[in-house]
């Protein structure tokens, strides 16, 4: 996987990057459920999870929380009600 500088990405590019990584970890999650001792798949799962966390952190630092209910911190003032929400253009 190429090393991307997530700080350089636009909001739309970041969201796409998060979607791609979330899809990858779900796929590997399902594979590992039935192949729990496959080390290569496990390494890829962990690698993508780290990348996913990085992209989410960059997104949330720049554009506000991706989720509410305590899954992401908010700076002042309360960011969740600030447009746009993650699913909005």
């Amino acid at each position: 996987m190429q090393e991307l500088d997530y700080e350089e990405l636009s909001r739309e590019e970041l969201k796409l990057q998060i979607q791609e990584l979330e899809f990858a970890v779900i796929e590997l999650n399902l594979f590992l459920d039935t192949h729990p001792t496959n080390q290569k798949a496990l390494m890829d799962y962990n690698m993508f999870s780290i990348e996913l966390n990085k992209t989410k952190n960059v997104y949330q630092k720049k554009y506000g929380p991706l989720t509410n209910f305590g899954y992401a911190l908010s700076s002042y003032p309360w960011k969740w009600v600030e447009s746009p929400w993650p699913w909005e253009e």
Partner: protein
Amino acid sequence: MSELNKEMVYEDLETEHIRLPKVYVVNQPYIDRFPLPEALKKGTIFPNLYDPYMAKMVKNKC
């Protein structure tokens, strides 16, 4: 189905030498991954599971 009925069914099968259906799946090897943008579009990250439905292919088989 009651226990009595079940026994009757299995006895019938045995005398007729008919086997019950069995399901199996082949173990999926971890060989390769699609690049992530491609995986998201194709709906799977695994090339060995990528098998989209194509009307053309079905026609050829008929």
